[in-house]
């Protein structure tokens, strides 16, 4: 995504090839690079787990169409990030298992999460920010 961002800033449209499991991360990375939209073309599954014939079929049947679309179609309107919850808003309440399901379903986690209380978790971060001269 970093290379695509450089191209876009140079005024050249790009599309990034990503395995399906990384499509969500690509969106987050694009936002971190200063773009709400950087087109991606998804490669189904993971390319390293496929025979050449499977790979060929996936690329030709799924990915190529998204490559073309990403370079030709104007991206839609930017998502309204103002409509997102605020940084400390509570977005879910539940048991240990509920919390794990909530994280997993949103791909915020790929396994077990042990919830921590907010204050102990913040203390080390605030210490780091303070030591670097940054306001927590």
């Amino acid at each position, binding site marked *: *995504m*970093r*290379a*695509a961002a*450089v*191209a*876009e*800033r*140079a*005024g*050249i*449209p*790009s*599309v*990034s*090839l*990503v*395995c399906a499991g*990384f499509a969500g*991360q*690509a969106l987050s990375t694009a936002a971190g690079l*200063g*773009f*709400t*939209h*950087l087109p*991606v073309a998804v*490669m189904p599954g993971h*390319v*390293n787990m496929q025979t050449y014939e499977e*790979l060929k079929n996936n*690329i*030709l049947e799924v*990915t*190529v169409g998204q*490559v*073309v679309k990403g*370079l*030709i179609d*104007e*991206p839609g309107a*930017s998502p309204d*990030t103002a409509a997102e919850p*605020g*940084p*400390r*808003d*509570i*977005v879910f*309440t*539940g*048991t*240990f298992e509920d*919390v794990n399901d*909530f*994280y997993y379903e949103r791909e915020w986690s790929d396994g077990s999460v042990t*919830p*921590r*209380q*907010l204050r102990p978790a913040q203390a080390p971060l605030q210490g780091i920010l303070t030591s670097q001269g940054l306001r927590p």
Partner: protein
Amino acid sequence: MARKQSPGRYQVVWPRGKKIADCAEPARRLEDLSGKTVAELWDFVFRGEEIFPLIESEVGARFAGVKFLRPDRFGNTHGSEEREVLAELPGKLRELGVDAVISGMGC
């Protein structure tokens, strides 16, 4: 990060931080790929040596005269030379008359 509410129950706070930077708009898209020059950027992993030729073949069949510039023209976009490769990229893209970029592999 969870905020504990009562024994056995937890509250989850929104994980994103405060938005502090404005987002840029992507470049204007092309009307057509016919006759255009497309740069292939690669991190030299995850089977790009097989995937890019497949894309070239199919896109080339759909759009007449589309030309592809292979990844070795630009260098590894995700390695020890990434900083230099990306710093030189805008100039190379302009110099080579590139109209569009396909970048991979995010796996």
